[in-house]
C-alpha cells in the first residue's frame, strides 16, 4: 500500500488533490481511497487530506499516520503543523516553495531521509502562469507522479480533465505537466 498525506489551507484544493490522485490510480486499475480530515472547512485554515493506493481492496478507514509521501501545498504550515509526523524513512516529500530546504530552515531535518526523494517546487508560480491562479494542487500531482512513479502523468491529466472543464482543465493539466518536467529534471541532476 502506498499512502499519501496532503497538507494545505482551506481554498487550496487539498481535498480535491487527494480525490484526483485516487481517480488517477483508479484509472490505472488500482484500488484507491481518498478522504479529507473532516475539519470544519474555512478558507485559510489548515486542512489535511489522505490518499491510499493498493492492488487490492482497501478496508481500513483510519487517517494516514505513516505516509509514504507528503505533499505540502503551503510552506507557511511548516512552522505551525507537524507536517512531517510519521513520515517513513524511505518517504517522499514535495513542498510547494520556490525556496530550498536550507532556505526554509529544514537543512538539518532532511539529513535523516533519502535526500533525492525530497524536493521543493514552485508549484504556485507554475499554476499562476498556466491557470491564472496560484492553486498548486494539480501541479503538485504532476510532481508526485515524476517523483514517485506511483501514478503516470497521463493518469493525472486524465483525472484533471474528468474533474474540470474548459480553461480550468487545460490550465491544471499544463501545470501538472510543467511540474512533472521540473521534478524529472531535478531528479536527473540529483542522479547525475
Amino acid at each position, binding site marked *: 500500500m502506498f499512502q499519501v498525506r496532503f497538507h494545505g489551507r482551506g481554498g487550496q484544493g487539498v481535498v480535491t488533490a487527494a480525490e484526483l490522485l485516487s481517480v488517477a490510480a*483508479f484509472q490505472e486499475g488500482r484500488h484507491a481511497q481518498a478522504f*479529507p480530515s473532516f475539519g470544519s472547512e474555512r478558507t485559510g485554515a489548515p486542512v489535511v487530506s489522505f490518499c491510499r493506493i493498493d492492488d487490492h481492496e482497501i478496508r*481500513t*478507514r483510519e487517517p494516514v499516520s505513516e505516509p509514504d509521501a507528503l505533499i505540502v501545498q503551503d510552506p507557511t504550515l511548516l512552522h505551525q503543523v507537524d507536517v512531517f509526523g510519521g513520515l517513513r524513512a524511505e518517504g517522499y516529500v514535495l513542498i510547494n516553495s520556490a525556496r530550498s530546504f536550507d532556505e526554509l530552515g529544514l537543512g538539518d531535518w532532511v539529513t535523516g531521509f533519502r535526500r533525492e526523494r525530497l524536493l521543493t517546487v514552485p508549484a504556485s508560480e507554475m499554476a499562476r502562469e498556466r491557470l491564472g491562479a496560484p492553486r498548486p494542487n494539480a501541479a503538485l500531482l504532476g510532481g508526485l507522479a515524476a517523483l514517485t512513479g506511483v501514478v503516470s502523468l497521463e493518469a493525472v491529466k486524465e483525472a484533471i480533465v474528468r474533474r474540470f472543464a474548459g480553461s480550468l482543465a487545460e490550465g491544471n493539466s499544463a501545470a501538472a505537466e510543467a511540474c512533472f518536467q521540473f521534478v524529472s529534471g531535478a531528479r536527473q541532476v540529483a542522479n547525475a
Partner: protein
Amino acid sequence: MLEQIEGSRAVARALALCRPEVIPAYPISPQTHIVEALSAMVKSGELAPCEFVNVESEFAAMSVAIGASATGARTYTATASQGLLYMAEALYNASGLGLPVVMTVANRAIGAPINIWNDHSDSMSQRDSGWIQLYVESNQEAVDTHVLAFRLAEELSLPVMVCMDGFILTHAFERVDLPSAEQVDSFLPAYEPRQLLDPADPVSIGAMVGPEAFTEVKYLAHVKHLQALDLIPELSEQLGAELGRTQHGVLRRYRSEDAETIVVALGSVLGTIEDAVDQLRGQGVSIGAVGIKAFRPFPTEDVREALARAARVVVIEKALALGVGGILVQDVRNSLAGSRAGIYTVIAGLGGRPITTEGLCGLLTAAVADTLEATTFLDLNSDLVERELARARATRRSGPHAENLLRDIGVVAAGPV
C-alpha cells in the same frame, strides 16, 4: 459500472435509479452532498418525475415525507445529528402510520459540545422509533443497501433508515460498482401502497386509537419488524443475484467460524477491524468479527448462532449510553443469554476520534488475555480527565468541562490539524 466516486454522490446516483417521486430535504453536514446531488438531478430533469421540496427544517422534511408517502409517492430524505433529533416526533408518526419512507442518516455525533464528526449517537437515539435501521460498512454496501431499502420498506410498509458513517463514508472517494437502471428496475417494482390518500376514494389515516386497540396496532408493527428478519436475507439474495455481488443479510461474518474471540460492531469501522483481525490471525490469535447490518430489528437468533462458539465477545460501539455504557452490547448480551462467553464493551470513535488498526490490535490483545476492563474507553486521555476531576473537587465554580479540557490540551478552536 465501476467508478471512483465520492460516497455521497454514489448514493445519490443509486437513489435516482430508485425513482423517488418526492424528496423533501434540509441540509446538514455530513449528509448535504447527497441531497445536493439529487436536487441538481431533479433540476436538470435527469431525475423525473420527482419533486424536490426545500423545507424549512428537519421537522418539516419528515412531515412532508409523511404526507407525500401517504399519497402513494415513493419518498426519500436524508439527515444527520441534531437534524435527526429535530424530526424525532415525526419519525414515530412515519413508523406508526406504516409509511415506507427511506432515509439516509449520515451518522454524526450529537452536541453539546457541538461536534460535526462521526459517531452513532444520532441513529442510536432513535433505535426504538419503529424504523428499520441498516448499517453499512462501505460505500459499495451503502449504494446497494439503498436499493434494498426501498423494496424492503414497501413490501412491509415500514420506514427504513440507512445509516452510513458521516465523512468516513459520505466524503470518501473509493471504487464503487454502480448498478444499472435495468438492474434496479428489475429488482424494485413500482410502489404499490397498502394505504392511499386519494381524493377519488377518500379514507382517513392516523385515527386516534384508545386502549381498545393501541396494543394491537403496536403489536402488528412489531410483527412486521420480525418479518423483516426473514425478508432482509431473502431480498439480499435476490439483489445479490441481480447485481452479481454478495449482499450480506442481517449480519456478516469475517473469519469468525472457528474464532475463540469475536469482535462485534456496526458500520465502517468493520473495515479497520477486519485488518486488525488479519494482523492478529497472522500472530496465531484465534479471532474473527461479526458485523451487524440490521440493528433494528435486531437479529437475536442469528447473533446467537454466529457467536455460539466464542469464548469471548468484544463489542465495539461508537455510541455511549450515559450511566450505562454500551448500547449494542445490551442486545448482544440478550442474544447470548445462558452462554458462558465473556463479554467486553469498548466505547470508541466518539465525535470522530480515529479508530486505528494499531489501537485495535492493542485492545484486542488485552481482550484475548482477559486483562481488559468490562467496559473500556478506547484511547481515553485519563490524565486529562483526572485533571478536570481534581479541578472540580478543588473549586466550586470550576467552569465548563469542554472549555477547560480544550484549554488544558492547548487547543484554541476544535478540530484536527
